[in-house]
């Protein structure tokens, strides 16, 4: 039975629950916008990285380099899209 629950994945799940609990802290505790956003950014990206490495087996085969390049490319486009939009549409309204 225990061979069906590998330690790495169980720990990955426990860690993802801990990250969720930490993120929920911004709701239950009073904190400034900057502190809250920092907590959310850190927990969300850690959580995403955890899924990628532990559960999606991203680094397992000889395609590792190409898979990570592709993910980083998608991520960079995503960040440029989101922050570029914020820069043009929200942050310039003085």
């Amino acid at each position, binding site marked *: 039975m225990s*061979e*069906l*629950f*590998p330690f790495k*994945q169980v720990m*990955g*799940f426990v860690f*993802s*629950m801990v990250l*969720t609990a930490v*993120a*929920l802290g*911004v*709701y239950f505790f009073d*904190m400034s*916008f900057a502190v*809250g*956003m920092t907590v*959310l*950014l850190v*927990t*969300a990206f850690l*959580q*995403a990285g955890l*899924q*990628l490495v*532990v*559960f*999606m*087996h*991203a680094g397992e*085969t000889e*395609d590792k380099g*190409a*898979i990570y390049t*592709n*993910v980083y*490319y*998608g*991520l960079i*486009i*995503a*960040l440029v*899209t*989101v922050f*570029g*939009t*914020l820069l043009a*549409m*929200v942050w310039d309204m003085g």
Partner: protein
Amino acid sequence: MDINHSLPLEYSTEENRLKIFGFWIFLGAEIMLFATLFAAYFTLYNRTAGGPDGAEIFQITPVFLETILLLTSSFTIGLGIHAMRLGRVKAMMGFFIVTLLLGLGFLSVEVFEFITYVHEGAGIQTSAFTSSLLATLGTHGAHVTLGFFWGLFILIQVKKRGLTPATANKSFIFSLYWHFLDVVWIFIFSFIYLKGMM
């Protein structure tokens, strides 16, 4: 067919390996799709046009439930793939069934949530805020719905044909999709819900 037995079944032919890589490229495009939805939401979230804002309509209980259901389903499908690699078909199918049930649970809570929003006067046409919110949540929910049926059909195929390089490959690719939806949910949970209720 050239089968390499040193690798897990789902990678065992070159075609299988390329299909997995191709699916990663698709997921890269999906990241960008959701980025555009987030960009629209972050631009429009305070344009409520006299309607309710996030702090008024978001409730922690359903959001928390959805998060736990989806995170757990991501864990169980990971266990399903692990069982598949051990050749334990029954255990694998069990984990896939649990995953799909958790997915169904997630969708039920989400439907309940959408009905609540509409009752509170936050329909898709109420304001720029509700439009961008429901478009983002709805795109994710539509992906989960599609994933539910996709997973169901793969489960039926594994039951009928057993574990072959082809069915193992499909199951693995489905697991990538499911984990990806969990990643997207984490960002919705953090930057739409928690940020809105902060």
